[in-house]
């Protein structure tokens, strides 16, 4: 084993951890007096990791015998690093305003991020479990970071309880799979599963529990119950990081499992279809009733988990066909990229307008906003149109690609696709309500001064860049596709 070469290949994975340690060190040397240093240090390491990623190409080697260095891992790592930089830009001004300790925050953020980058590359169930714990434990703390606010503490506690529960499923599943096969490496598991006759109850129970555990993490129904409360209570920059990052990382793991390990079977397809359809239906119906922006986005994220699950299903169903499911994998990664982009923009916007005050995060406080703050309204309208999948937004092309890839399996997946189409109409009911509120409703008091927005340069820049990207990639997705492609 060539350790130096392995370390070089995995630099984008461990650099965030180095950043985490550097931030901690700085905080120990000058406690409470580091100012903007932790944020700058974090952003710099992430940028460095991204630069490293962008200047090297994928390889077929398997560093440390545990992680992959292929196109899938690299494109998802790239998305995650950018999400991390955005999360830093969102958090810094808010922490400063609320006078919360900044060093710990960024150390935890980077630790969680390094878990995410490990998760999308993991090729061993041990690495997978390690990565998930590395993501989750810092996030429990981050969700409760405003420890004097009841909602934030509730959010952290709820996330911790249900997350621990999910980890239980996950680790039990891994144990059963190990019992069935005697190994935890994906390659061995795949070789074992190649012969369907050998698949015992142990295997089936193990893989089911594994999927249940990951289902919790991606917030797929029926394992979604924690999502609205956790999303609402956590500080908005944490929610944004959670919504965009965890979704990308956990779907990356699911994608790899469906591609490399799990054998295509009618039972598995039925299970994933059920998860997909349930998430789409529950998420979209649940969102119809929400007026709190963050809760609305939480329910919508459940629905999006359903759409993405259809992509995973497409990977599973097309991997034995010509092309080896490459189109389906790319479709899911593309969807994740557009989803992360839109989600970041939407939460950055929520932070700007909502200023962490529950009454300002209520849509009804912003009737007729378009008249007073045209650009801000336009930005959020654009995000919601992208979520809804209206043409000329990146979200539309994401859905288009996903559906097209799902047709790669012939007509096998038509049922969840029809559910997707039908629930997309339901989804318009709440996405358009946001537009209605801003553009069509009249404010209760025309002359009242509008509550001020929280618009530090970083947040405004993020909203602007993300919204521009949603439009540009909606019209001209080639650069993004090329970057994400193999």
């Amino acid at each position, binding site marked *: 084993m060539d350790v130096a070469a392995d370390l070089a290949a995995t630099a984008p994975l461990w650099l965030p951890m180095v950043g985490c340690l550097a931030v901690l060190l700085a905080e120990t040397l000058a406690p409470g007096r580091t100012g903007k240093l932790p944020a700058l240090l974090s952003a710099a390491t992430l940028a460095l990791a991204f630069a490293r990623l962008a200047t090297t190409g994928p390889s077929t080697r398997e560093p440390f015998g545990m992680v992959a260095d292929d196109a899938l891992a690299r494109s998802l790592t790239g998305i995650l690093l950018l999400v991390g930089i955005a999360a830093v830009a969102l958090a810094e001004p808010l922490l400063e305003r609320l006078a919360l300790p900044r060093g710990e925050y960024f150390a935890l953020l980077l630790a969680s991020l390094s878990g995410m980058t490990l998760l999308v590359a993991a090729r061993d169930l041990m690495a997978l479990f390690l990565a998930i714990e590395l993501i989750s434990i810092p996030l429990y703390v981050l969700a409760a970071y405003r420890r004097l606010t009841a909602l934030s503490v509730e959010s952290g506690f709820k996330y911790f309880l249900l997350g621990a529960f999910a980890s239980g499923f996950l680790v039990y599943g891994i144990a059963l799979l190990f019992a069935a096969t005697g190994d935890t490496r994906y390659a061995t598991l795949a070789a074992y599963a190649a012969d369907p006759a050998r698949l015992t109850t142990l295997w089936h129970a193990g893989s089911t529990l594994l999927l249940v555990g990951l289902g919790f993490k991606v917030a797929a129904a029926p394992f979604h119950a924690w999502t609205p409360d956790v999303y609402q209570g956590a500080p908005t920059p944490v929610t944004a990081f959670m919504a965009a990052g965890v979704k990308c990382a956990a779907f990356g793991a699911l994608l790899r499992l469906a591609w490399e390990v799990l054998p295509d079977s009618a039972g598995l397809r039925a299970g994933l279809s059920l998860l997909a359809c349930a998430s789409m239906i529950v998420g979209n119906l649940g969102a119809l009733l929400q007026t709190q922006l963050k809760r609305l986005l939480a329910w919508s994220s459940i629905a999006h988990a359903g759409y993405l699950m259809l992509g995973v299903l497409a990977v599973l169903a097309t991997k034995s066909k010509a092309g080896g499911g490459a189109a389906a994998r790319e479709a899911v990664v593309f969807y994740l990229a557009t989803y992360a982009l839109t989600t970041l923009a939407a939460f950055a916007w929520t932070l700007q307008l909502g200023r962490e005050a529950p009454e300002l995060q209520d849509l009804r406080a912003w009737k007729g906003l378009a008249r007073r703050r045209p650009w801000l309204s336009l930005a959020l309208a654009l995000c919601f149109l992208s979520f809804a999948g209206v043409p000329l937004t990146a979200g539309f092309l994401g859905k*288009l*690609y996903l559906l*097209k890839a799902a047709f790669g399996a012939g007509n096998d997946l038509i049922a969840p696709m029809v559910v997707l189409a039908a629930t*997309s*109409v339901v989804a318009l009911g709440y996405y358009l309500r946001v537009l209605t509120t801003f*553009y069509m409703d009249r404010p209760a008091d025309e002359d009242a001064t509008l509550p001020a927005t929280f618009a530090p340069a970083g947040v405004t820049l993020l909203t602007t860049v993300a919204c521009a990207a949603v439009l540009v990639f909606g019209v001209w997705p080639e650069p993004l*596709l090329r970057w994400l492609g193999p």
Partner: protein
Amino acid sequence: MNDLLLAVLILGPLAAAVVIALLPRLAPEPARVLTLLVTVATFAASLPLLATDLGGAMTRELDVGWIAAFRVRFHLGVDGISAPLVVLTTLLMPLVVLASYGHVHDRVKQYCVLLLAMEGGMIGVFAALDLVLFYVFFELSLVPLYLLVGIYGGARRAYAALKFFLFTVAGSLPLLLAILWLVNKAGSGDFATLRNLALSPQEQGWLFAAFAAAFCVKVPLVPLHTWLPDAHVEAPTGGSVVLAGVTLKMGTYGLLRFCLPLFPQASTQAMPLLLALAVVGILYGALLAWAQGDLKKIVAYSSVSHLGFVVLGLFAMESTAASGAVLQMVNHGLSTGALFLLIGMIYERAHTRQLAEFGGLARTMPRFAVCLVVASLSSIGLPGLNGFVGEFLILIGTWRDHPVAASLAALGVLLGAIYLLGLVKGLLFGPIVHPKTAAWRDLTTREMALLAPLFALMVAIGFAPQPLLRRIEPPVQRMLEAPRLALEAAAPPPPPAKQPKEGG
């Protein structure tokens, strides 16, 4: 081969919309003038499109790659079916901008931006020759119209706008699935490639259902029409004109361009159902129009009735009827556009649209009276005006194979005369009802000027429809080739006894 004109017509208004949106602190008047200039320039630039190929081939084609991974190409082109519709669109837009002087005083810049975005989307729908591209434009034109109705509309505007959006999207998502299925099967979404794709009858059935669902909601065909009256009543005048004048034609255009040639067997199987729905639409729409007291609702339901004629003409699968149907799409845009503009003008003065509150306007507003009479007669189908030509062609074309449907539809013409003449009588004649009638000014020069092109075309098409029909007929025949063949294959062989009789 690659002609940029269509791309300019689509991207020009879209680019202008972006520029106007980005101009900071643009006052309402410059925004309106700028929009007017852009729409007039677009209209002028679109006129050369009318020089279509008389053999029915596509002209002005542009075919460049767009998104390779999805196999989507930016493929545009027009023939004798789409060119008149594009020109109708570009003609109506400057009129809508001119009309906005009367009723849009708030958020004018946004209104202009939405109109321009709408224009680009609508032209794209008629010019797209790649199905995914078509879908993009089809959906794209929804959002501006949704906002136009929702922001500038009446009291229940938000409800009406949402209903309109949800109905249309519910119809068009199956269309998206069907298009993607076709793209996967054929490896391309190009119209020419898909026409040669062999599909089993079962596949055709599903695909036809998905396509027809989207288009029939848009037309709207009874029983999917309930969104239309709501949208029309709440929409501002400009929104109504665009909605009735152009967007409804996207449905009938889609039926002719895609459903008939791509799924011929399924189309012939569905023919009885669609003919029946068309006839029901003609009669039911007319009866509903007759019963309304709101001027806009009368015209809205008359649209249901008139678009029923168009569907009837298309699904008679006979070239005279189908050509008449295409002509009628244009005619309906002209006459209904004029009627909505006139209703908007009277509403600006009276602030009511209830028929019962009007009377005797012929005496106080003679110019308005003349315009309303001509527009109504055009809509009724009086010989010498455009509506007559279209309806007449549809009826004779349909009569040959479907005499029952044609006779019932003819009854619709009669009903049309009843409710439209009722509207004319109620507004113009009888005693003066509204106490302020005398204070209402007759039409201004601006209003006359914006109506003039519509009336000129009504008369021109009424007297000389040939130049237009000569362009419409060849491509219509091309679209009908496959369904005609399917129809002949499905028909039972003619009874042998008939031959000697004719010979002797």
